[in-house]
C-alpha cells in the first residue's frame, strides 16, 4: 500500500515538475516585470484619476475628469497629430531603406566589416548631438539647408514655422540614427536565409529584384514584424529629437512639433500637473497598443502576400525546387 502510494506521489511529483517547473524558471522575469513594468503602469492610471501636484503630491480623486479635460484641449489633438505624422514619416521610410541597405550589405562587397560598422556609426552618436547638428542644418534663417536651397534658386523652407516641414526634419534625424541599426538586424536575418534558395532562384532565371522580392522579403517576415513593433513603440514615444530641435524645447510657438511626450512633459514638469500628465501617458499607452496591433496585422499580410500562407515555402521557391529537381533528373538521364 505505502509503496504504491509513494509511487503515485513520485509520478505525480514528476508530472508537476514537467508541468509547472518551466513556469518557475521564467518567473523571475515576470516578477521583475510586475514590479518595474506593470506596477508603474497601473500606478500611472491611479495618478491619472486624481488631482496630483508634482510637489504637493496626491490630491482629490477626480475620476475621469483629467481625461475629459485633456481630450477637450486643442494642444492634445495637435500633439497627437504631430506624433502620428512624425511616426509615419520616420518608421515607414526607415524600415524600407533599412531592408534595402541590408540587402546591399549582404551581397559580395570588399571590406564587409567596414561597411557594416559604417552603417551603425550614426547609432553611436548621442541623440542630443544629432539634434544639435540637425538643429543647425535646419535653422530657418541661416541654416545650411536653407542657404543651399537659396543658392540653387529655390525658396527657403520654414523648417520651424511649418508643421510638416518640421516633422520632416525631425523624421530625418530619427532615420539618420535608426536606419543603420535596423539594417544590421535585417542583415543578420538575411544571412540566416539558406543560400541554396538564391541559387535555385537564379537557375530559374530570377533577377536580383525578383530574388529580393520573392525570396528575401518573405523569409524576413518575422524580423520585419519585430522591427516594426519596436519602432512603433519607439516612434510614438519620440522625445529627444523634438525636445532638442529648438532652444526652448517646447515644440514650437504654435506646437508645430510638440509630440505627445513633449506635451506630457510640459503638463507634468512645467505645469506641475501630474494628474493630467498621467492621463496623457495612459492615452499614449493605449495608442501604442492600438497602432501596434494594426501594424502587426498589416505586416503579416504584406509579408505573406506573395509568399503563400503561413510557413509554407513560397510558390516561387517551390517552382524553383521542382525545376531544379527536373534538371537534375535530366542530367542524370543524359549520363
Amino acid at each position, binding site marked *: 500500500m505505502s509503496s504504491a502510494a509513494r509511487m503515485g506521489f513520485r509520478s505525480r511529483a514528476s508530472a508537476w515538475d514537467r508541468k509547472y517547473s518551466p513556469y518557475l524558471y521564467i518567473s523571475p522575469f515576470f516578477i521583475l*516585470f510586475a514590479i*518595474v513594468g506593470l506596477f508603474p503602469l497601473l500606478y500611472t492610471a491611479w495618478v491619472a484619476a486624481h488631482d496630483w501636484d*508634482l*510637489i504637493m503630491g496626491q490630491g482629490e480623486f477626480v475620476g475621469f475628469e483629467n481625461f475629459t479635460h485633456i481630450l477637450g484641449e486643442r494642444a492634445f489633438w495637435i500633439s497627437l497629430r504631430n506624433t502620428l505624422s512624425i511616426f509615419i514619416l520616420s518608421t515607414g521610410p526607415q524600415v524600407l531603406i533599412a531592408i534595402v541597405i541590408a540587402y546591399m550589405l549582404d551581397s559580395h562587397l570588399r571590406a564587409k566589416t567596414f561597411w557594416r560598422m559604417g552603417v551603425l556609426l550614426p547609432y553611436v552618436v548621442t541623440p542630443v548631438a544629432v539634434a544639435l547638428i540637425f538643429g543647425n542644418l535646419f535653422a530657418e*534663417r*541661416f541654416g545650411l539647408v536653407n542657404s543651399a536651397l537659396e543658392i540653387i534658386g529655390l525658396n527657403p523652407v520654414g523648417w520651424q514655422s511649418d508643421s510638416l516641414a518640421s516633422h520632416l526634419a525631425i523624421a530625418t534625424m530619427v532615420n539618420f540614427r535608426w536606419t543603420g541599426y535596423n539594417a544590421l538586424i535585417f542583415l543578420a536575418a538575411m544571412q540566416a536565409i539558406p543560400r541554396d534558395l538564391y541559387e535555385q532562384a537564379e537557375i530559374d532565371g530570377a533577377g536580383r529584384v525578383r530574388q529580393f522580392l520573392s525570396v528575401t522579403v518573405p523569409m524576413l517576415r518575422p524580423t520585419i514584424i519585430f522591427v516594426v513593433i519596436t519602432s512603433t513603440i519607439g516612434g510614438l514615444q519620440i522625445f529627444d529629437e523634438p525636445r532638442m530641435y529648438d532652444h526652448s524645447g517646447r515644440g514650437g510657438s504654435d506646437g508645430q512639433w510638440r509630440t505627445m511626450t513633449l506635451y506630457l512633459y510640459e503638463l507634468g514638469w512645467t505645469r506641475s500637473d501630474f494628474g493630467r500628465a498621467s492621463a496623457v501617458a495612459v492615452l499614449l499607452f493605449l495608442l501604442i497598443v492600438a497602432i501596434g496591433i494594426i501594424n502587426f496585422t498589416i505586416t503579416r499580410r504584406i509579408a505573406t502576400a506573395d509568399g503563400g500562407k503561413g510557413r509554407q515555402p513560397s510558390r516561387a521557391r517551390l517552382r524553383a525546387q521542382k525545376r531544379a529537381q527536373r534538371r537534375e533528373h535530366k542530367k542524370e538521364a543524359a549520363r
Partner: protein
Amino acid sequence: MSTTDFNKARRRHPTPRHRLAQIGALSITAVLTLAACGGDAEADGEANGNGSETNASSGEAPDSLSVTTFNEFGYEELFEEYEELTGIQIEHNKVDTAENARDALRNSLGAGSGASDIEAVELDWLVEFMQYSDRFEDLSEDAPADRWLDWKYEDAVDEEGRVIGFGTDIGPQALCYRADLFEEAGLPSDREEVAAALDGDWETYFDLGREFVAASDSAWYSGSDNIWQGMINQVEVPFETEDGEIIADTNSEVKDLYDQLLAASVDDELSAGLSQWSGDWSDAFQRDGFATMLCPGWMLGVIEGNADGVEGWDVADAFPGGGGNWGGSYLTVPTQGENIEAAKELAAWLTEPEQQIKAFEAIGAFPSTVEALESEEIQSATDEFFNDAPVGEILANRAEAIEVQPFKGPNYLLINVAIQDALNRVDVDGVDDPESSWEKFLDEVEALK
C-alpha cells in the same frame, strides 16, 4: 510614476538585449522613486517643526557643497576663492537655461531629494516656489536685511516672514545699440545724443526705429519677445492679482501693449523676426541683423559673447518708458540638503557686496546690495567691448529710474511664456495674425485657471 514613463520615452527601440538593460535601469528608477517617496515623508516631517534637530548634525563643515546655477552667474573664480578660504570644495552644476533649472528644481522638490545644497532661483519663478516656501530654509538670521535694496529683499520674504533666498543680481535695463549702423542710417550715434533721442515712451523708441529701418537694411530689434520683456516689466499688475485671480486675458493694458508691439514689429517691419536665444538669433549678431537690444546688466555678457569680433556696440543711458527690471536671481537653500548650515554660510558669502562686485566684473551681473551699488568699483566700471561705456554708472542710473516692481503671481512664468509664444507665432513664424494668435493665447490662459 511618470518618471519611469519618461525614461521609457527617452529609450527607443528596445531589442531583447536592450530590454534587459532597460529593466535594470527601470528597476533602479523604481527603487529611487520609492526611496524618494520615503524621503518626501521625511521632508514633510522636517517642515513640520523638528527640522532644526535633524539639521543640527550638519553644523560641522562638510568636505564639499553643491551649487546649481543657470546661464552665467560669474561664480567660477569665487568658488576657487572660497575653497582657498575654507577648504570646502564646491561642485558647480551649471544648467543651460533658467527654465530647465526651474523644471529640475521642481522635480527635486517633488521627489524630496536631488536638489543641490544651494539652488539659484530666478525672479520670474521665485513666486511659484513661494507656494512651497516651507521646502526652503529660512535665511533671515544669516545676513542683515539692509544689505540689499528693499524690494530685492522683500520679494524673497514669504507670508510668515521667512526669507527663502538671498538676492544675487538685479536686471536694470539700459539700451544697447550699434553705433556704426546708427551712423550709416543718419541717426545720432553718440551715447548722450542717443539717450536724448530715446527720452520718452515706447512710441518714441518705435518712431526712431521707423526712421532707422527706412534708411537701413538691418532691423531695429531682434524680435518681439525681447521687447516684450521690457514692456511687461513696467506693468504694475500684469497677469494675476494679489488675490490669486488670473487677469491676463481681461487686462486691457496687456492687450494694448501686445497690439502696439506687433503693429511695430510686423506692420512697420521693425523686427528681425528672430526668437530670443535661438540659433538664428545668436547668428544674427554676426550679420548686422538688428541695431538695438534691451540690456539688463547680465545681457551685456550675452551680447559680448554672441557678437565676438563685431565692432560698434555701445550702451545708452536711456530706456523707453523710464526704467525697468528684467530678471535677477536668488540663492536658496532647500531643506532637503544635508549641509544646511554650511550652505547658508556660502550663500551669505556669495551675496556679500565684495563678491557681487567680482561677479559683475566677470560677466556683468549687476549687484543688488546697497554697498556694492555705491562702491567705487561699480560707479567707475567701463566696458571695453561697448566702446568703453561707463556701464556701472549707466546701470546704476537705470536702477534708480525703476518706478514699478510688477506683481508676479505663481503663474507669471507660464503666462509670460504663453504670450511670448503668441508674439512669435505672428512675428517669427508668421502662422497667425495678431488676433488669431491672441485667441490661442486666451485658450492657454483658460487651461491654467
